[in-house]
């Protein structure tokens, strides 16, 4: 992008879900939390689609989009405006020293202020650091290493750093997610890259980067006759039953069935593969079930469940492998296994999750993280206090 183009002022206004979706379709990828169909899933929040426009040769051109969720404070008509893993703008352009994040964020905060927001939260989906599977493995076995930050990353990205640096300059405040999962979106994620040297990997190449255990388990499942199929809306009930069982076993709070039905109803019509339910069965028994999501070239493993019985048939590995194959077939460049904690402490209960994901041979990535811009300082401060005490 030339400096002349950058000098063109950007305007921002509300757009229809159709305009929003049309823009998302022009992008190689965007977070699924930023597609218009995600708004209705969060039914307890109000939502709105916004678009950035730049004057072009033939009229206006839409150059960015955001799904804004408005969370109302009890009793007052004031909102936290939340753009989970968003907005969808040309983040890569910030390698250009003349690119100013303020050109994008200033119209956003002016607009949201008028809408009654007391604060804004964004989460640029931009990688700042990467660590390889080998580094993580080494870190877990090294007692001196307790967190990802204790190891120098494979890469520090100038783009991610430029965004962090500019957010500080513009007065945004990082919402540090120390240690485990914080309230917002995870800052550390696990990615399996599906390209090499700019071309798509073959299934064999993906398999080869996995560790031996993963490869053996995938083979074992195939040999045992585990079958993975795509589910219908009616199958959500069976998924949910297994998911509740998993939640009891692994000590997390399950979401209600209605949440998944809402996701299905809103996301499925938007695009093929936007929301897919996968069911792994062994001799008719459901042994694992997962939900995958894809937006353009980015495929996510979103929710998973597995039975306690018949663990030896390795339904989980079978269904993961099936999701990876589908992502490859759809031309995805990354298979995203979502959040990890930054712990590499062998005694931490969360380390098992990262070890499972590391077996795929992917990489841990750190995102820019979530940042807040307080608009009304007293209300924002009260909100922060309330969130802390919750």
């Amino acid at each position, binding site marked *: 992008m030339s400096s002349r183009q950058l000098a063109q002022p950007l305007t921002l206004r509300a757009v229809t879900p159709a305009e929003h979706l049309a823009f998302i379709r022009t992008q190689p990828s965007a977070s699924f939390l930023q597609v218009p169909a995600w708004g209705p899933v969060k039914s307890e929040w109000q939502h709105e689609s916004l678009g950035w426009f730049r004057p072009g040769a033939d009229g206006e051109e839409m150059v960015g989009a955001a799904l804004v969720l408005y969370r109302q404070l009890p009793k007052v008509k004031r909102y936290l405006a939340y753009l989970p893993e968003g907005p969808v703008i040309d983040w890569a352009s910030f*390698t250009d*020293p003349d690119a100013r994040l303020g050109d994008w964020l200033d119209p956003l905060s002016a607009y949201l202020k008028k809408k009654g927001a007391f604060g804004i939260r964004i989460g640029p989906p931009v990688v*700042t650091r990467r660590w390889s599977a080998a580094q993580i493995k080494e870190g877990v076995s090294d007692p*001196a*290493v307790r967190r990802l*930050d*204790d*190891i*120098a*990353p494979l890469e*520090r*990205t*100038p783009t991610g*750093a*430029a*965004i*962090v*640096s*500019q957010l*500080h*300059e513009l007065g945004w405040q990082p919402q540090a997610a120390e240690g485990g999962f914080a309230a917002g979106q995870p800052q550390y994620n696990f990615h399996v890259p599906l390209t090499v040297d700019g071309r798509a990997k073959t299934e064999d190449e993906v398999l080869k980067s996995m560790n031996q255990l993963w490869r053996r388990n995938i083979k074992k499942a195939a040999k045992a006759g585990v079958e993975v199929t795509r589910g219908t809306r009616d199958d959500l009930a069976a998924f949910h039953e297994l998911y509740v069982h998993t939640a009891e076993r692994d000590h997390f709070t399950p979401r209600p069935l209605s949440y998944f039905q809402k996701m299905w109803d809103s996301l499925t019509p938007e695009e093929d593969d936007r929301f897919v339910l996968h069911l792994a069965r062994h001799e008719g028994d459901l042994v694992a079930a997962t939900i995958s999501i894809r937006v353009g070239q980015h495929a996510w493993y979103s929710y998973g469940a597995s039975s306690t019985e018949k663990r030896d048939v390795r339904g989980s590995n079978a269904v993961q492998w099936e999701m990876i194959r589908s992502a490859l077939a759809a031309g995805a460049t990354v298979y995203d296994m979502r959040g990890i904690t930054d712990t590499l402490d062998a005694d931490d209960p969360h380390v098992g999750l990262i070890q499972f994901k590391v077996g795929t041979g992917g990489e841990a990535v750190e995102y820019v993280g979530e940042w807040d811009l307080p608009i009304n300082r007293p209300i924002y401060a009260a909100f922060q206090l309330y969130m802390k005490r919750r």
Partner: protein
Amino acid sequence: MTLTLHVDGPRWREHLVEVAERTPGLVPVAKGNGYGFGLGRLARRTQWLADRGVGTGQTWGDVLAVGTYDEVAEVADRFHGSILVLTPWRPFGAALEVDPAFAGRVIHTVSRAEDLAALLERQPDARYVLELVTSMLRHGMTGRDLRGLGGLTARGRLEGIALHLPLAQGSHLSQVQRLITDAVSADLPTRTLWVSHLTDSEHERLRASYSDYTIRPRIGTGLWLGDRGALKVTAQVLDVHPVERGDVFGYRSRTAPKSGHVLIVSGGTAHGIGLAAPSGDLSLKSRAATLARGGLDAVGFVRSPYFIGGKQCLFAEPPHMQASMLFLPHGSPVPAVGDEIDVRVRFTTTSFDRVEIS
């Protein structure tokens, strides 16, 4: 007639090596009065450290940091490595008068974009570090300034980024992290970080998180003056006069308030004796102590930095240029002419007549 800094040589050298060993990449700082030792002596000692480092395969003291361009010549003959100048380069003054004989050994500190262009114009092969502005707000560039440098940093020899941190008040790490992020955002062709005023544990954290960086800790006080037990300052008793109450003495013809002795000792304003710099200690206790000293002044005598038998002496009148007058009340042990007495001074503000290293 001398104010002397006595150094327990073996103990001091052992301390220097100990600091170096736990500080990989150590860059000794020698500036101003040379922390009381003198710049020349510190330059030779840095060379000694560097030689020991090479022997063990470590990098210590291959670079010596000085404060100003005028100090470069004082260390350049006694030390053979690179010389980092901490005062930022400006297109005027002493920075432009570096002796060509050692221009190649000098690493400039650059704190403004326009200065980098001007420096490279004058010296295309200049070695330099880019200073980032810290919460001290002294000199340095912001992240935006760095990103605006563009291709300039590919020219000359960029030796790293430099941070001048304030004295520890809580942890510096988040600030350091933020500043390195600024440097990463500019995609600078360097992975070296010159820092000061980090604690040992902060260094340890930094070395873990940034093991892809070379860290060069700049240390002055903690290195040269870190083991106070190895250092002792003495003055000589030059004369002793018994006085009775009402006797007249001194430049200002004061009268003795009671019987005792007037002592003439070496050390005066030329050495920095009696010239108090603000201590920087803002605690209630130290402020109360200042008030108390003011009180003594009002009554007549002020506490001096001289100690006899562990007891602090009072000035009989303000220090002279090279000697001071002390008042010893009747009953105190009286030293003889030629005796040495202890002096407690700030090393960075004192010029010693002599430094004796055992």
